[in-house]
């Protein structure tokens, strides 16, 4: 199956000196959900920003490699151009226009259609997935709960009718129950619209449970990749990302072992 999004040997440098990504490659096949996992500072968010062209806004640049969207090289294009072509980035921490109403946020997202589709007259499609947003359509979105804000962030992506959605930590700051709800909806959107997704997560458990394929990122390079189910069963992944192996807590002595094994993974 063709890849909707392909990243090849990507190098990213901040402020001309600080290398964050080293030769990162990944692919998101059409209609699939791909998870990108990793600990703090591994370069997950940077990867997404590199793909959607937001790096120059933070003094970063792609110093090597290429990003291909829909078969065409899109490395270094302006962010709004990429969004209009159908690459939608749901940024970390929702990043809504907090002083505007729910509906106005959806209206603003119509800019992403960029002439590919006519702007919708109403947002029934979004409200069908998120009935709660309809009740709050005229409220200032800064006052919504965290879960509702994440729903709105996803709603904006729906309005944009993208080919690929990039999610940056949709679980951030949400209660476990809400996280499960959000991921269920993400899956549902994937299945009903066929949009491909790249999901960056720290919550490896929920991400692996919902993704088709997964990459594990460490210090700016891909360390491990495979089918999500396979990775979830991998002993190292269990140790490092899923909170320990079977058999309950480990003794302090095993922490050393953990370090050794991690080196092995490298």
């Amino acid at each position, binding site marked *: 199956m063709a890849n909707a999004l392909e990243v090849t040997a990507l190098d990213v440098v901040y402020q001309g000196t600080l290398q964050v990504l080293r030769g990162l490659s990944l692919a998101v096949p059409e209609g699939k959900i791909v998870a990108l996992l990793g600990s703090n500072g591994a370069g997950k968010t940077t990867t997404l920003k590199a793909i959607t062209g937001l790096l120059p806004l933070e003094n970063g640049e792609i110093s090597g490699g290429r990003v291909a969207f829909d078969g065409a090289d899109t490395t270094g294009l302006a*962010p709004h151009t990429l969004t209009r072509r159908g690459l939608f980035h749901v940024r970390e921490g929702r990043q809504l226009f907090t002083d505007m109403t729910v509906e106005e946020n959806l209206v603003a997202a119509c*800019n992403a259609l960029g002439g590919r589709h006519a702007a919708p007259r109403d947002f029934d499609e979004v409200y069908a997935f998120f009935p709660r947003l309809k009740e709050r359509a005229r409220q200032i979105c800064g006052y919504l709960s965290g879960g509702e804000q994440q729903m709105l962030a996803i709603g904006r992506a729906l309005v*944009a009718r993208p080919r690929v959605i990039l999610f940056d930590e949709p679980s951030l700051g949400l209660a476990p129950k809400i996280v499960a709800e959000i991921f269920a909806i993400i899956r549902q959107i994937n299945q009903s619209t066929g949009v491909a997704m790249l999901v960056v997560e720290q919550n490896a458990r929920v991400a692996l449970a919902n993704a088709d394929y997964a990459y594990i990122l460490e210090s700016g390079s891909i360390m491990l990749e495979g089918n999500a189910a396979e990775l979830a069963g991998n002993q190292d992944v269990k140790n490092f990302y899923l909170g320990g192996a079977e058999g309950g807590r480990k003794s302090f002595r095993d922490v050393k072992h953990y370090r050794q094994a991690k080196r092995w993974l490298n």
Partner: protein
Amino acid sequence: MNLFIEYSMVGIASGGMYALMALGFVLVFKGTGVFNFAQGELMMLGAYIFLSVNQLAGLHWSIALLATVLFALLTGVLIERTVLRALAGQPLLSIVMATVGLGLVLKGAAGLIWGQEQRTLPELVPRKPIFIGDILIPGAVFWSFVISMAVIAACLLYFRFTRGGVTMRAAASSQVNAYAVGINVPVISALTWGLAAAAGGFAGVLLAAINNLTPHLGDLALSVLAVLIVGGLDSLAGVIVGGLIIGWLQSMTGAYLGGQYREIMPFIVVLAVLLVRPHGLFGRKEIERI
């Protein structure tokens, strides 16, 4: 009592003009976070363009007004493209200082082109006094109030109900997030400057038609600083309320305390407002979820 009502009405009506003058400042500040010290000079420039088209080229005032607004719009876009774009990413102070410099350049250029002498614009607004009951309001004050309110109301409606307006607000709210939903931020910020300059040019024509026109007309614009601080630098509704409050206060002070206190009173109110609400009566406090 009748005198009180009359002074109140005249004060509130003259506040309309303040509100219109403050509009351009608010548009730019809301849209790009920059306080544009050259806004007054844009008003002055607009008035001179109107004068040139109307009197020197001999065209009807309506055509001259249209030409003025279009010219001002282009000027705003041009300023954003050249001055502001070149300074993108620089500290805010540098950008604000650049607008101060721009103001001086425009003022000097206007002096060179049109001379320092006072010019008189044709009467755009009827001078015939308006009677409400037995209260008399000077025609110029009354009509400039009506026109100002109409322009500001049109802006309010535009920002609330049109996609273009919502897009501008989104870009003002956060540039990165605006990019991420597909908004062409550079174009929007150029348009914002254009819109502010157009509002300024229009206000300039109206102001010059009531007062007289010299290259120093722009200095009057800084007197609306009080309006901006009272109303909140980023609020269109605040501009109206702030303008009316300041206009009323000046009229009251002039009537009861004497003309020499007229210019001081607004700033006393500003101090009081700053103590209670540092972001102005209608200014936006950041919404933070904890």
